[in-house]
């Protein structure tokens, strides 16, 4: 994992998506039979006298003990949904069920969920230990139980020895851990995390991503994680819901989301993508505006106009001629592990090919060269427009 150079993000995304089936196979299988922890049914929420529709009929079922991520650009409603589950806001319509029981009307302090806030929100006037003990004291637990639970939680987040420090004496990463320990101390049914890593620097963030995943595994609590970082979502999640403008566009495992996006936005938002507008001319046959015909493996939707989706790493450079589409190289970008070729297809369509530098750097192709592009039919997704 210790690459000398930081890996380019889009490549990283592709790599993780490819790796995911192996590492996620076991928990994935367990999740399939699990029960529903949080069930959101047709949630609508507007702000400012109906001016802004933050959530528009959102339905989601989050399973017990899974690491579930709400992913989307800012303003897509992901944080609003989290705050509805926590009880900080009230939905206009729809119901949220926790373990089958409706949460409607319950104030935040009566809900068996806890939140890790974006800005930590660690109590500045309390020590680390007092922060972690806060929730337990609110539940009027016996003193001895609180003490042992605080100790256990601080060990879990690796903050032993800092019990009597004040938050001001801690680094951002340490404060984040205090917030985590504090939220987990109550043994919530669901832990809600509102972009908890966004304030950390890249190295610490990567560390905390793995840490969070480990924690989730250890405590066996359902995590609902909000982020706008697709890379973070792919790394950590069992399942992801991609949101946009108050709607859930797709729910699936990281692999499903990356390999089989069901919406143009999802394909575009997650990783690098080539999107080509085409019209249907037969079963699994499509024609681009330039007249070039493309064959796909999947039959695709019945609509006449479609978008073809192909990841840059799945397309190949080939010698000119034969079945390859003819193109001209516009730019060659060497990014260390990979080389990216920006090419222009016949008819002026821009296209991107990413090739791994498996055998070391080589530049057999230069800008201006004519080149062939091969799109393996199995690598192409077809989306209705």
């Amino acid at each position, binding site marked *: 994992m210790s690459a000398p150079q930081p890996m380019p993000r889009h490549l990283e995304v592709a790599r993780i998506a490819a790796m995911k089936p192996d590492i996620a196979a076991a928990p994935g299988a367990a999740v399939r039979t699990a029960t529903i922890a949080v069930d959101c049914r047709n949630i609508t929420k507007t702000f400012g006298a109906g001016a802004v529709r933050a959530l528009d009929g959102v339905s989601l079922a989050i399973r017990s003990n899974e690491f579930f991520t709400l992913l989307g650009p800012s303003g897509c409603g992901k944080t609003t949904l989290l705050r509805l589950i*926590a*009880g*900080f806001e009230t939905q206009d319509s729809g119901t949220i069920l926790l373990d089958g029981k409706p949460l409607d009307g319950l*104030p*935040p*302090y009566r809900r068996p*969920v*806890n*939140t890790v*806030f974006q*800005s930590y*929100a*660690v*109590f*500045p*006037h309390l020590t680390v230990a007092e922060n972690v003990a*806060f*929730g337990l004291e*609110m*539940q009027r637990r016996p003193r001895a139980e609180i003490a042992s639970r605080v100790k256990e939680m601080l060990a879990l987040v690796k903050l032993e020895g800092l019990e*009597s420090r004040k938050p001001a004496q801690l680094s951002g990463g340490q404060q984040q851990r205090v917030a985590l320990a*504090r*939220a987990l101390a*109550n043994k919530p049914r669901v832990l809600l995390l509102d972009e908890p890593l966004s304030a950390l620097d890249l190295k610490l963030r990567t560390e905390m991503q793995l840490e969070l995943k480990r924690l989730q595994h250890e405590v066996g609590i359902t995590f609902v994680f909000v982020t706008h970082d697709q890379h973070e979502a792919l790394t950590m999640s069992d399942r992801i819901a991609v949101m946009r403008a108050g709607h859930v566009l797709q729910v699936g495992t990281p692999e499903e989301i990356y390999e089989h996006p069901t919406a143009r936005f999802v394909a575009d938002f997650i990783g690098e993508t080539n999107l080509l507008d085409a019209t249907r001319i037969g079963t699994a046959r499509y024609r681009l505006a330039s007249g070039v015909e493309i064959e796909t493996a999947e039959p695709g939707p019945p609509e006449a106009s479609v978008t073809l989706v192909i990841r840059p790493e799945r397309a190949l450079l080939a010698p000119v001629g034969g079945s390859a589409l003819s193109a001209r190289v516009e730019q060659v970008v060497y990014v260390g592990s990979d080389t990216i070729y920006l090419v222009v297809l016949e008819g002026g369509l821009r296209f991107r090919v990413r090739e791994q530098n498996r055998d070391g750097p080589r530049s057999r192709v230069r800008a201006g060269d004519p080149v062939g592009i091969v799109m393996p039919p199995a690598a192409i997704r077809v989306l209705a427009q």
Partner: protein
Amino acid sequence: MMGALRRAGLLAPSVLTIGVLLILPLGLMAFVSTLERGPTGGVIWNQHTADAYVQFLFERDLTDRLVINTDYLHIFGRSIVVAAITTAVTLAVAFPMALWMAFQPPRRRLLLVFIVTVPFWTNILVRNYAWILLLRNDGVIDWVLARLGLTGEHINVLYTPLATTIGLTYSFLPYMVLPIYVSLEKLDRRLIEAAFDLGANRWHAFRRVILPLSMPGVVGGAILVFVPGLGAFISPELLGGAKSMMIGSLIQQQFGQSRNWPFGAALSFVLLVLVLMALAAHAARYRRKEARP
């Protein structure tokens, strides 16, 4: 050399301000308190005596012996009690006000801050006279309460320590509201949400998070009310009447009717020392609390 000169030059304005406006008058007051009073007022500048301080605690009986006189101590005691009660009542009124203000939408908050400061725009004397009209027998409050059948004869509030406390509370309310409001306004709302999230109900969120985090405002407001309250002059004079004299009136009297400048200066000095001691005690306590690991 040049550096030292420059430093002296840059320091000069603040040194002069503090020296001329603060140290010099205080020094003069301390000096005057050790002088012999003049026969028709004023002081004799070259005759020193501790008479003023002796007078604070003792009086001469008919045989010219010194016997303890607790009149002035009583006045000091009453002033401290009235100032303390005023501070407590002001706090009780101001905290809910500040809390409510801090949780209004930002635009309305500005308006409310402005409204709180509006009494500053009218003369304090006028405002205290207004309270006389409100509090006196057959005044507005008396009349309304009598009509409602809540009081028998009259309320008999004017010219009592209660009237003084009411007047002082009214006068000092903004000094308590504003510091508390400021500390509540900058309080991170997520901390309150976090408290709710961790199972705190409204009372516990207030007691464990909001109140401790607004303590700097509370302490600041308390000092701003207690200290001037101790030396307040106008409200006790107008509303308290002669029977409930406070330090402020007493001091004013020494420089006025009594023509006893040294005694007035000595009283001021004792008051100053008391206040400084109280502040020092508070600061020491605060430091200890901060230093606690």
